[in-house]
């Protein structure tokens, strides 16, 4: 093995120009891939689910039968100076926004006060009229506004759905086109709406318009994450430049790591393009992750290179030697990082699986360039800067790593005991971890999107809806099921049952329209606000409704074949676990109380919460798989259970501890935590590998425990501290993000890498002193 490593090292440096040319060609191929198969964005709702997933099947059935279930919502509140929303300026604004949305290319239907029509008895005639016939006459005749106000006070179908009972809030609901695996149309309509609001100067007129609904959340998510990665990556890069400059005090030291980072980033993008995997909110973090892994690895190579150069070797020999020393540990660090990412494949979420595939390649790509192009490039740097030499000889890092062995030996028992306490605490922490989230927690609390969501939640008993797809296979098999009075009666009871729940808002259903139409056909007698008595009556009332020429065609509430109904209910915001329990409980109650109905809960909110549930399960399973595989790798690497365990425990404790600390601080783990768990598992063990490998190498070469420890801390400690500083500060940039999963990635990663650093610098040496050294050696020390 050693001989093979040596031969490989000599081969690379002897053929350094060819290696660099081959690297250049590889990059060209990757660029050609990116050009040939352009990367596409996909942040749609359904992209998270595997084909055949019950949640996806139900959602697709809903789309198939009723069309889109995605609504862009504009919330309008009466100004302080106004009595209610029935003011000239406000109504004109509502009409303008409604018309703008109705005219928009991706909007299918608009519900609002300005589009509101009512079916009623008009002097002995059944009529379906607009609430306000002509907005141009609104300014001339104040009675129009008063009439509209009086009408809306008695409109059962609209109250608490389109307008609140106090008439101070109203909302415009625009049903947007459903496009599978696409988010771009949502971004377009939201941006167009925002620009329209700005152009019209509504905010200057004192209106505080709220936005909500699936398209808005989708737009916010993609826009914010794109914007943030746009500045976070350059910021990370700048910070890394500065740290590299401080640590190495050389131009080469500042720039050479970017050879690895840039080539790795281009290569993985080419691979992603070739595999046809889209850019998603999950794999958007791949670029900063590549930067960090590439940087961490390159720093080890650079530290080794400068260490060897300081020891007197020329550039070529130092390059050969660094490959010999680092080939095995870097291979294993990259392998474990790759395993950490691969473990995410066990989740049920498609974008996380796709992330796992690409992310698993990144450490391997980094390894390839770190052990080929990077040493080949370094071998050309024959000049050793004086500052670098002095830094490596007696800089603060050198002094610190020299100090560590004695300190660890002296306090080995205390440190080891402290480590054991932390281990116990971390095990306790795991038991306390709460994996949960909800849509409100995806955005920082000070953002408009969060405030708007809270507004809709408080005002309309829910910022998002649950859709019930209702049919009956047991009792009714005939064509036109929804016309059967018995079925409608049960649906009506189901509606009441759901609306009586404290967390459920007012629904919108076909039975409501049928009741209203029957009442209108019966001289507006409130006694006839009832469901039809016969199937024929239902059919005829529906025909009457259609014939009255309403804008509301009910196509999103009953399917074309009239065998299924859709019932839409807002549900107050709650955490994913609570929501899923609530919906399951509702489902089981519905099954029990309405045995002849088949009511399937679905819609974007159900999909979102199912996605969170899969995330929750994914955190545990991927972390377990990751831990198992990395442990096996450690035992193979060190060919010893003892050394494997010593190396892995300090890497696991920080992760478990961070999870526990998060829970104690009242923070739930989410999608960001899922990625962090797998990523940090892979990266945190890198330090252990470098440390224990160098220690084992020294021991095999005849050093006693103390000598081996000194060598390991001096030679590997510098790079470990450097990479940890870079990782901690690099990930801390994420703390300035607006998306909570991104902030969590930054927060947890920084904490974990910091704890892992302490584990490697203090805990591992102390344990090794206790477990690996015999009495004689310890006395010598």
């Amino acid at each position: 093995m050693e001989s093979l490593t040596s031969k490989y090292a000599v081969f690379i440096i002897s053929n350094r120009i060819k290696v660099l040319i081959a690297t250049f060609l590889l990059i060209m191929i990757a660029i050609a891939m990116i050009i040939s198969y352009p990367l596409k964005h996909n942040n749609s709702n359904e992209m998270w689910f595997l084909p055949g997933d019950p949640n996806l099947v139900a959602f697709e059935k809903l789309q198939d039968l009723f069309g889109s279930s995605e609504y862009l919502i504009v919330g309008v509140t009466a100004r302080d100076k106004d009595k209610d929303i029935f003011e000239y300026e406000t109504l004109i604004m509502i009409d303008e926004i409604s018309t703008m949305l109705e005219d928009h290319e991706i909007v299918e239907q608009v519900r609002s006060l300005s589009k509101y029509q009512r079916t009623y008895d008009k002097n002995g005639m059944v009529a379906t009229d607009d609430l306000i016939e002509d907005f141009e006459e609104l300014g001339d005749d104040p009675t129009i506004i008063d009439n509209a106000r009086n009408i809306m006070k008695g409109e059962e179908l609209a109250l608490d759905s389109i307008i609140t009972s106090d008439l101070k809030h109203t909302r415009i609901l625009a049903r947007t086109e459903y496009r599978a695996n696409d988010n771009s149309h949502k971004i377009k309509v939201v941006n167009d709406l925002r620009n329209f609001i700005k152009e019209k100067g509504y905010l200057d007129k004192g209106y505080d318009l709220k936005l909500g609904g699936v398209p808005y959340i989708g737009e916010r998510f993609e826009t914010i994450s794109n914007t943030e990665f746009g500045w976070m990556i350059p910021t990370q890069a700048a910070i890394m430049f500065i740290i590299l400059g401080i640590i190495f005090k050389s131009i080469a030291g500042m720039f050479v790591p970017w050879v690895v980072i840039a080539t790795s980033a281009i290569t993985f993008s080419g691979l992603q393009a070739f595999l046809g995997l889209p850019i998603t909110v999950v794999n958007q973090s791949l670029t900063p992750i590549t930067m960090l892994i590439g940087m961490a690895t390159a720093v080890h190579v650079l530290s080794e290179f400068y260490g060897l150069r300081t020891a007197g070797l020329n550039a070529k020999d130092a390059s050969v030697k660094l490959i010999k020393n680092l080939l095995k540990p870097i291979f294993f660090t990259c392998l474990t990082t790759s395993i950490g990412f691969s473990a995410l494949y066990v989740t049920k979420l498609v974008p996380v699986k796709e992330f796992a595939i690409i992310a698993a390649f990144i450490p391997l790509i980094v390894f390839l360039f770190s052990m080929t192009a990077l040493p080949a490039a370094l071998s050309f740097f024959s000049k050793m800067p004086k500052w670098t030499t002095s830094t490596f000889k007696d800089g603060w890092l050198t002094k610190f790593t020299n100090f560590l062995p004695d300190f660890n030996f002296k306090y080995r028992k205390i440190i080891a005991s402290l480590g054991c306490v932390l281990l116990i605490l971390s095990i306790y922490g795991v038991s306390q971890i709460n994996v949960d989230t909800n849509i409100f927690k995806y955005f920082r609390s000070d953002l408009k999107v969060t405030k708007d969501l809270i507004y809709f939640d408080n005002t309309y008993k829910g910022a998002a809806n649950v859709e019930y797809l209702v049919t009956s296979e047991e009792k009714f098999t005939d064509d036109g099921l929804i016309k059967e009075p018995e079925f409608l009666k049960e649906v009506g009871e189901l509606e009441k049952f759901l609306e009586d729940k404290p967390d459920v808002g007012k629904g919108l259903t076909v039975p409501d329209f049928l009741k209203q139409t029957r009442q209108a056909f019966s001289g507006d007698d409130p006694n006839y606000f009832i469901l039809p008595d016969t199937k024929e009556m239902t059919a005829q009332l529906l025909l009457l409704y259609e014939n009255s020429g309403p804008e509301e065609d009910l196509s999103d509430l009953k399917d074309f074949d009239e065998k299924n109904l859709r019932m839409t209910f807002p549900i107050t915001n709650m955490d994913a676990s609570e929501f899923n329990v609530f919906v399951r409980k509702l489902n089981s109650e519905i099954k029990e109380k309405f045995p002849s109905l088949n009511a399937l809960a679905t819609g974007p909110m159900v999909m979102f919460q199912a996605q969170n549930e899969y995330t929750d399960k994914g955190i545990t399973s991927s972390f377990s798989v990751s831990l198992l595989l990395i442990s096996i790798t450690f035992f193979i690497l060190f060919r010893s259970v003892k050394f494997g365990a010593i190396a892995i425990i300090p890497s696991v404790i920080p992760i478990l501890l961070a999870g526990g600390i998060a829970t104690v601080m009242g923070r739930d783990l989410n999608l960001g935590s899922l990625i962090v768990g797998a990523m940090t598992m892979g990266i945190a063990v890198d330090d252990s590998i470098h440390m224990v490998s160098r220690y084992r190498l020294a021991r095999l070469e005849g050093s006693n425990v103390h000598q081996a420890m000194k060598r390991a801390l001096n030679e590997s400690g510098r790079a470990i501290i450097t990479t940890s500083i870079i990782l901690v500060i690099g990930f801390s940039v994420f703390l300035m993000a607006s998306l909570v999963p991104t902030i969590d990635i930054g927060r947890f990663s920084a904490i974990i890498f910091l704890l892992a650093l302490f584990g490697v610098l203090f805990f591992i040496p102390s344990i090794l002193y206790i477990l690996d050294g015999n009495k004689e050696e310890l006395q010598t020390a």
Partner: protein
Amino acid sequence: MITTKLLKLFTSVLLLIFSFSGILYGSSALEIMTKVDARYTGDSAISDWRMILIDKKDRKRIREIEIFSKEYNDVDKSISFFKSPGDVKGTSYMSYNWESTSKEDDSWLYLPALQKVNRIASADRSGSFMGSDFTYSDIDGFELEDFNYKLVKDSDVVDGKDCWVIESTPKNKNVIAKTGYLRSIQWVRKDIYFVVKNRILVKKGKKVKLFAAKDIQKIDGVWTAKTLQMITTKNKKLVHKSIFQLKSVKYNSNVEDSIFETEVMQRGL
């Protein structure tokens, strides 16, 4: 009123909507459209229609209607009876469309399940007719003088027949409000003054409607399209489609005046 105009639509009066400026073959656009408008469409008719409603996934729903109509000096009367599907069978709809614009049209609906005739208010003319892609304005027809016309192309072939291509635009906002249309381009057959194709830009929702009259035959001396199709699109995508198929028609048959009474609606034919 609606049904009377529906029949007119079916006999292509719908298509007498627009005329245009510009000179061609010695005729101005307005003159051409005046001739289209003046084309004889029968004094009375009894017809059977199949209405097919098709959604964007090509799912179909079929209704069958029998219509009686008659033109009087001051009013057009029509009465329609739904024959299928079974659950709306016997439902009838009657309308009086008064010539005088000062007099509001009258409509009645009879629902057999409620055994009750109700007067129906005149709906928004730009609203959907019976859940189809045709509007009440399509059915009623437009006033010739409400539009400005322009000859777009003097010759274009549709189904093997030479046509004029005419663009029409509403003269004022009231016309837009009444029809719901912003602009239309129609193809008029030169040999029989019959609009065979129309492309309409709708105000509401920026939709585009595509009309086609097919299988045109001379029946009882009246040029009649046996298939009328209206497709609604948005952003070049199908939203909904309606096809009216004429199963049978008899012009100038003996349509009794007494048929246009509410008692007949309840009693049935």
